[in-house]
Each structure stands twice: as C-alpha cells, then as structure tokens.
C-alpha cells in the first residue's frame, strides 16, 4: 500500500501529465485509505496551477487545460461525499458564472478563461456562447455566483456587457454578484464606464482578478 505522500505525489504527477486514469487511481487509493479529502484537493489544485503555468508558457495548449479541469471536477466529485460526511466545506474558492455574450460566437477566449479559473479551483458554470444577458444573470442568481464573467470579441457585442450590470441592478441583486469582463475590443476604461468590477485582458489576469474580487 502506498504512503500518504506517495499517493499525493501520484495525484499531482497524474493531473500534471493529464493522465485521467492515474489521477482516478490516486483518488480511489486516498478514499480507501480514509485520508483527509482537503489535503488531496489542495495537492490537485497545485497540479492544476502547474497546468495553468504550462499553458501560459505554451508548453501546454487549451485541450490539455480543459481535460485537466475535467479531471479536477471528477476528482472533486469523488471526494465530496467524504467531505460532506465529515462536515467539511468545499475547497472551491468561489463560483463564477461565465459566458460569451449575446450575438457573439467567438468563445475561445472565454473557454481559456473558464479552463484557467477551474484550474485555480473556482467552481465554473460555463453558459457557452451567444448567451442572452437575461440567461447569464438568471444563472448567476440560481447558482449564487460570486462573480458573473462576460466576454465579447466584437465591438458590436461588447455593449451587451454593460447590460449585465444594468440588469443586476434592475433586479436588485447587484451587491450579490461581482462583474468581470474581457475580450479584445475592451479596455479598463470601458469596463469602468459600464460599471464592471474588474477587467481582464487575458486568462492570467482573469484568475488574479477573480481571486481579488472573492477576497473583497
């Protein structure tokens, strides 16, 4: 039987190597050994951070980030029952509802941000592309999201990002949800003008901004 440290290392190495079977084995061994789930989740989160770093340096590409994020989700689910039984809370940093805004089907940048947020241990509810403002806001309310994140690649779709803020205000829930926006035609100035809480030019900045928003 492997030692605690050996299982932790195996889990870390597997997720960094995008090895779905290897990570699943490590998680199973951990559960069978009745060890603290949070310790393993933290180690897996370290692995996801490494995956994110490798993406930033182009050693890894988007599919690897997305598959690693799927592995992380599967592992978290497997460990959640044990955590619930022990009365422990989720190790997730917070919930982000994310979508490429209405009229815009250019969702690759949003997918990268979603993958990197998942890599940074955020619970991400990805609403996809061409998401109506009403749908995005409703999802934020339904999921009790800490952050609503919207992306736009076109100057003709970015005005809808401002509507997120307006709709949250109109529904009286603005104080419950921070708003983060990004996309090629946007700028900090534009984000400020529409009343967003954060602007991110890329996925790295998005993760940092999300961490800051959560800590506020």
């Amino acid at each position, binding site marked *: 039987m492997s030692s605690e440290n050996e299982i932790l290392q195996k889990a870390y190495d597997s997720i960094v190597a995008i090895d779905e079977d290897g990570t699943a084995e490590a998680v199973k061994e951990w559960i069978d050994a009745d060890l603290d789930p949070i310790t393993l989740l933290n180690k897996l989160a370290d692995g996801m951070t490494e995956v994110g770093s490798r*993406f*930033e340096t*182009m050693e890894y*590409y*988007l*599919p690897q980030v*997305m*598959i690693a994020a*799927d592995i992380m989700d599967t592992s978290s689910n497997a460990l959640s029952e044990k955590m619930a039984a022990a009365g422990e809370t989720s190790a997730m940093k917070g919930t982000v509802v994310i979508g490429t805004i*209405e*009229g*815009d*089907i*250019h969702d*690759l*940048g949003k*997918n*990268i941000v979603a993958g990197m947020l998942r890599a940074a241990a955020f619970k991400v509810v990805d609403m996809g592309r061409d998401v109506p403002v009403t749908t995005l806001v409703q999802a934020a309310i339904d999921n009790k999201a800490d952050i609503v994140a919207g992306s736009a690649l*076109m*100057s*003709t*779709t970015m*005005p*809808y990002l401002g509507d997120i803020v307006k709709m949250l205000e109109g529904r009286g829930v603005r104080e419950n949800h921070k708003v983060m926006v990004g996309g*090629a*035609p946007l700028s900090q100035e534009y984000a400020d003008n529409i009343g967003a809480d954060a602007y991110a*030019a*890329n*996925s*790295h900045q998005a993760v940092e901004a999300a961490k800051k928003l959560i800590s506020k």
Partner: protein
Amino acid sequence: MLDIFDLYQKSIEADKIEEKNFDNRILPKKLNELAKEYDITYRPDEIVPQDMDMVDSIYKAAMDLLLDVGIYNISTSSVVKLEESEIKAQLKLLPGEKTYGVGNEKVHVVQREVGDKRAPTTFAGANGGAISEEYYAKVMESCAREPLTAGIHCGTVATLHGMEMKARSPIEMLGARAEAVWTREGMRMAGRPGMPMVGIMSSVTSEGQIFGDGPGAMRPEDMHLLCLLNDMKFDWDALKKAVNTSQNSLTVDGCMCPIMGGYTGGPATTAIANVAEGLVAYMLFGAASYSICPPFNPMSGEGSSAAPTFVSAHTGAALKRNTKGLYSNYVFPSAGMCTDMMIDETAVYVSAITAGGIDILFGAAGTCGTGLDAYAGMPGRITAEIGRAAAKMSLADMNEFCVELEKTYADVVKAGNAPKGKTFQECYDVKTVKPSKEYEDLWAKSKAKFTDMGLEFEF
C-alpha cells in the same frame, strides 16, 4: 462550391457529437498524430519557408485532417464528412486568379508562387478595427490616397449618431451600410471610386452583413467576407451568408482567425489546421481567396513574433504549392501608428508571408486592430512598399532578415507591452488627409535601416 442542400442534409442527418469532445479530444489528437507522422515541426530560426518537403507535408496532413475529422456544424452539433474525390474535384475548380473592383480601379490578382518575384497586391485599411464615425470616411480616404494600395479593408464603425452598435439590433444593420457608404465616400474623395473594398466588419450577423450591399455601398465586385469559425467549424449563419453571396453572384473571401495555443495547439499543428480550414473556405463559400489573421497569442494578444509568422507563411506556401487558391493575410502589428516598432513588426510579417507566396496583404492595422482610430493609409503605404521590396529577395535572405529583425521586438510584444502609438487624428492632418512629417520621416528612417539589412526599395 459545395452544394448547400447537401451540406444542409449532411448536417441534420449526421450523428451528434458533443462539441467539447470535438474540441478537446478528436481535433487535437488527430493534429498531434499528423504532425508526428509527417514530421512537421516549428523552428524559430526558420520562419520563412525553406524546406518545401515540409511545406508539402503540411498540405498532406491538412488533407488527412479534413478527411478524418470533417467540419463541425455548431448549429446541429454534428460533423459533416467529405470524400477525398469530392474535395479534389472542388479544388480543381479554383481559378487561380480573380478580378476585384470596377472601372479604372479594377484590379486583377493572379496567384503568386512561393518565392515569386512579382509583388503582392495591397489592400490598405483598418482590418476591422473600430473608427469613430466622424473620422471614418477620412481614414478611408487616407487609404485610397496611397497610390500603391489597390483596395481598402473596411473598419468597424464605432458609433452611429453617437449610439453604440449592438449586434442583432437595427443599428447594426445601419452601421453595416454606413461602413460601406463611408468607405466608398473616402474612395470618391480620393478620386478612386471603383476601388474594391473588403467588408462588412460592423456587423457579425448574416442580416447585418447582407445589408452592407446596396446603392453607394458594397458592390458585387467587392470582397464579401465570409468567416469560418475557428477550429474546423461552421454554423448556419455562415451558410446563410454563403447563400446570399452565391445566389446574388457576389465576390467572396473566405476568412478565419486562428488562436495560437487553442484547440489547434502550437505552431506546427496550427499550420496544418489553417491549411485544412483554407480548403474548407474555398469549398464551403465558393471563394477564390482565403484570408487569415496571424494566430494570436491568447496571453499577450500578439501576432507578429516568430511563431505566428511561421504559421502564416507556411500556411500560404502549402496552399500555393498544392492548390490554385488565392491567399491573403491580415497584417496586425501589436504596436500602434507612428512607432518604429509597428514598422519593424510589419516588415517581418509582410516579408515572411510575401516570401511564402501571399497574394493580397490587408493592412497593416496597428494595436492588433484593438485601438480606436488607430488606422490610416500610411501603414498601407509601408505594407505595400515592404511587400514589393521583399518579393525581390531570396527565401534564405528573407529568413535571415526576418529572424534578425524579429529579435528586436519579440520580448516586448510577448510581454504585451507594445507602444500604443498615435491615432489617425494625431498623426494625420485631418483637413488635408495627409500624414504628418514626423510619420513620413519615421518611415524614411526605417527604410534606410531595412536597406542596410538587404531590402531594395523601389520608391
């Protein structure tokens, strides 16, 4: 052009595939296998195509990719597969030449080859970048006033009557029309009303784009942009645009905007995917030409360093050596106008793709097309002059020039710290529509530098 009815039927009858599965597993897995099988690799010291065996391998791999993974229709969540005989028959129909524009400004583009000594054609313009409504026609006039530019690539109208352009709204349709009308007005004011334009950029929807055609706006002889989605995908909206252009006999350019490090992976695999998507663009849209942006880096946004330049140059070379398709490219430096760096980035990217056989250069548009009013005719002049000079150089010398010059700005663009430069109104006299002395002097200084590095300018 592929039969729209067949595409429709195949799309609705094919098995459903989860898009996530196509993106994360099917496409990247096959791309990696093909790069390995054909030994296609990226070398930062060889951004201008030198190895024609590898160039042809990129084409073979692209054909294999298309046959194996097909094209994903996001509207039906299904994959359309094509037979090899069907693809080859379609590609045989490519004309290898095309005429754009009307009257005195009619321009006939004949396919260039890799290392062709004939200069590529230049369409100056904003490449879709946003322009304030009060300056829009003036910016277009500044492009039309450049004698070396044969056409204009439209920008996006930032506002209309002070109102933001919103996709799917009536304003979007009016903005599309305004974009074309004001571009034509700029051409008229420069005395070149028959010039071809490339659009529409102010609208993303099919109804908006279609409304760019009309009296005083886009003509059938203008280049109607039909965009594929990234990563071997299309949707009904793209096909609706194709129905419009085919049923109304409109000139088409099939375009695509790749991302480095996305679902198509790194430089080698992105080059394979770009070529495969070029084949799709020719067939799906009945396009004589295919244009791409440089594959932008998702972290820094840049598309002018060695890796994206390698991809664009090799994509062109592979298509040129194996099809009769025309190939155009968006020149998107990170730095803005009136900076040394924007000129250096333009020189590297334009030289490499010219050596790779490019037919039409779009731009240049600084700030990667993200700045407001960051476009004018002067970058078109610079692009055209570099294209003419680069065509005279050997592939080996061009590579040496590009590799050496790229090193001078690579770190800055990769860090996302390129200078924003000046706006149209800051580096042009808006009344006379002439560039500032500062800008002209800057170009003269850069030309002298490039001459020392081996480029021979005609002007």
